[in-house]
Structures are given as C-alpha cells and as structure tokens.
C-alpha cells in the first residue's frame, strides 16, 4: 500500500527531527498563551480570556503544523532534492501518495494540537476536549495539508513556501476566530472570514470545549474544502505537464 510507504517516510522524518518539531510546535503557542492569556488578563464573553484563547490556539497550531510539514517537505522534494521524481516513476498510485501526504500532514497538525493540550493541562480551565475535538483537529489538519500540497505544486522556487506563510497562514492565524471573536467584525467581512476553514475549526473547538455539540455545518464546510483542494491536488499531480 503506497499510503503506508509515504507514512513510513513521514515517520522517519518525524523521528529524526523529533526534538526540533516538538520545540518549534511548543514555542509559538506558548508565547501566545503567556502573552495574551496570562500576561494581558482580561475576560471574553464573561469568561477568562484564556478559555476563549486555548481552543483557538489549538485550531491554529493544527493549521500551521500540518501546513508547514507538507509545504516545506513537498517544496524541497519537488524543487530542490527532486526526490518527487522517484515517486512519480514508482508504481505507487499517485492518489495514494497524495493521500499519504494528507494523512501524514494531518497527524503532524494533531501532534501540534496535542502539545498545546499538554501545555495547558496544568491550568484548570474546565474546558472539555474529547473525541470530537481530535476529529476537528485531524480534519482541520487535513484541509491545510491539502492546501499545502496544492501550493507546493504551484511553487516556482523554494522561497515561495515562506511567502505562502506570510500571505495565507499568518493573516488567517490572526483574523480567523483565534484571538478574538468574528462577531465583532463588520458585516460582510465577518461572513467572508467565517467561511474560512480556520474560523470554522476554531468555532467548533470552542463549542466542544464549552461542553456543547459541534454543529454539522462546520464539519460540512471543512469537508467541502478538503474535497475541493483534494480534487485540485489530484488534477495537478496527474495532469500538470511540468511537475
């Protein structure tokens, strides 16, 4: 099964860079939690701001963890190492290769989210994280892994990967329901931002953390993104003339 071959490759990469991956996944959320959650003491919706922040940060790190894992890896393999060439000629069906990349990226996002959960464990927030939370993390990671695949197939040079971070990931991190509620946004902009996948993932994480069931609409939106981006990545790898 080609998916397992790709996951094995991802595992080798994870095992080798375990400390680097773990520390880098830890640093950014830790800073956000300390500065915005504990340093600037405030409340949101009548609750400590930290309770609002933690689910949003978890959603955000699943996005950054999965996106960067796939984008950096694929951009280097395709443009610099040319290691993708060996996959292209191998009998492993390319859809399996892509699926392996998406699952692998999604698991990296889940790992980043679990690190935040561990970091916040000593703080007794009363937030609830259950199987649905992990499903949201996986799904959000899958969406951004797939986005990472599409963008790395379109990248013209290795330096494009940091640009994608600057133009797509960073604005989403700050605007999409992570640090403040989209309810405060003006009409029009709010609707656009709420349709973005991170906004949905944050909202669902927050709803689940408050002990309420996550709505199916959020899952539907994330699955729609996954289907569209998945389709584009499949078209790229099968049809793009100069990969």
């Amino acid at each position: 099964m080609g998916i397992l071959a790709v996951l094995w490759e991802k595992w080798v990469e994870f095992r080798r860079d375990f400390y680097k991956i773990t520390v880098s996944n830890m640093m950014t959320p830790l800073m956000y939690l300390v500065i915005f959650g504990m340093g600037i003491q405030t409340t949101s919706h009548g609750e400590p701001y930290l309770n609002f922040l933690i689910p949003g940060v978890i959603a955000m790190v699943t996005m950054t963890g999965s996106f960067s894992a796939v984008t950096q890896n694929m951009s280097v393999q395709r443009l610099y190492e040319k290691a993708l060439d060996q996959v292209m000629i191998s009998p492993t069906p390319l859809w399996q290769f892509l699926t392996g990349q998406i699952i692998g990226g999604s698991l990296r996002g889940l790992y980043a989210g679990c690190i935040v959960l561990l970091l916040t464990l000593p703080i007794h927030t009363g937030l609830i994280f259950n199987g649905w939370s992990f499903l949201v993390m996986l799904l959000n990671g899958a969406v951004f892994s797939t986005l990472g695949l599409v963008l790395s197939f379109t990248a013209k040079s290795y330096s494009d990967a940091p640009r994608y971070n600057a133009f797509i990931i960073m604005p989403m991190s700050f605007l999409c329901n992570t640090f403040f509620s989209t309810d405060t946004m003006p009409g029009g902009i709010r609707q656009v931002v709420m349709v973005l996948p991170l906004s949905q993932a944050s909202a669902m994480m927050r709803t689940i953390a408050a002990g309420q069931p996550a709505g199916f609409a959020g899952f539907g939106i994330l699955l729609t993104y996954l289907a569209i981006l998945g389709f584009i990545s499949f078209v790229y790898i099968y049809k793009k003339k100069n990969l």
Partner: protein
Amino acid sequence: MIEIKDLTKKFGDFTAVDRLNLTIETGEFFGLLGPNGAGKTTTISMLSTVLLPTSGEIRIDGKVLDRRASSEKKKISVVTQEYSMRQDMTINEVMEYQGRLYYLPKDVRKKKADELLEFAGLTEYRRRVVRHLSGGMKRKLMICRALMTEPEILLLDEPTAGMDALARRQMWNLLRQLQSRNLTILLTTHFIDEAQTLCNRVALMNKGKMDVIDTPDSLIKQLGPYAVDETAKDTLSSRYFADRNSAVEYLSTCNESAALRNTTLEDVFLSRMGRNITSR
C-alpha cells in the same frame, strides 16, 4: 520494448523535443547522445512521467505510458542526472523507501539492499545521511536504488557524471553485467567513449530532433574507420577515410604533427554536430 511515437515537448515557444520517433527492443543497450540542450534529459523525464509530452506518446510493451500506468511504471527504474533523493535520509532509509514504493516484501527489501550495497561497496556507509556522501557514492546509491526493484527497463541519465576514471570503469562493468540479464537500458551520456563501449545502438539528437540512429560500428564505418588528425595554428581538424591505404597516402602529404588513428564514435558525434575541436 519502448516505442516512442512523434514525441514532442514544448516549454512555451521553445521546443525541447521535436517529433521524436524511436523503438528500443527488449534487452537492447541504447545510447542517446547529443550536445547540451539536445533534449536527452527531457526525453528521459517524459519516459519517467515527470514531464508529460505536449504531443505524441510512449508505449511500454505496447501499452501507453502515463502517470496512471502503474503496471508499466513498475517495469522502469530511473537514475536521474541530479541526485534525486531525500538528502536527509540514510542510505538504509533510501533503499527501504524505494522498496516500499515498489511494494517489495520486507525480507526481499532487506536481502536486495544488503546485496546491492555490498556490491557497490556502500555497506559500511549505510547509516550515513545522503547529504554527507561524496558525489560518486551518491551516484552508486542511485544505481543501487534503481536496481533494487529488479526493473525490466533502466533509464540512465548521465550515470557516470562526477565519477573518477576508476569508478566509471566499475560502473561500466556493472552495466555490462546488467545487459547480460536481458535488461533494456537507455543511456544518455556526455562520455561518447562510454556509449561506444556499452551500447548496441546509439541515436544522435540535436536541438530536440533525431539526427541519426545506428550501431556505433556502422556510424563509424559511414564516416570512415580511419582518421588523420592535423593541427593547424590553434585548430585540430580531422579527415576520415574508408580504407587505411588512402589514409596513409593522405598522411604522407601532411606536416609531421599529423597522426593516423582509428575513428571513434566521438568523431561521428563531432562530425554530425558540425563542430571542430579547438585547442586553447
């Protein structure tokens, strides 16, 4: 058998490969020669499906080769011009990953990797990361990786680039052994002597177009098997003769720096590409 029909590859306005037609029989050792930019690597890239043709098609044993053709792709292994592998993996991991991509069972993966790394003299380096290998070792690893899957067709794009003379000879011996296993080999190389030594047939490409296809001996015979080199000012030029007597007769009319020798495939290459050797 590889059949290439009217294969064309364009990058914008630039035509890298222009209506290439070629048939390579099973078990044949075929050389694709040409100057830089002739379209050799583009052709290999299309055979490995990394690039898709603008028009035309490639057939492997009668079946069209494309990115979905898993059963055809299983028959092919490629050694690319660049070191196309994960630089942060160890030799062991590179071999393991290749075996997994080709669905080899665990015991077969281990056995083949052990055999090939031993053969290539890489066993003691098997835990070393690719980034820390020398150019020659990386090249050997690429050959090992390509052979791990027991391919029926081996595409070699400049396989001896960056190797010293001894390593090149070792590689030639290895390739000869492979040929004796009825493996179909397509070789592109800048070393014309390599093609003359190894290949049953060669094709000369220039500016994306096929110039000529024949056996090395036949091409040499067509040009004239005897060559007289003359040096005039800073230019070395050669004249070719169908028989030795004519060559000797001509040599007697030249200055004493002229020399008689056997014509090589490199002479054919230079003659057809319309180039003179200039000593500077």
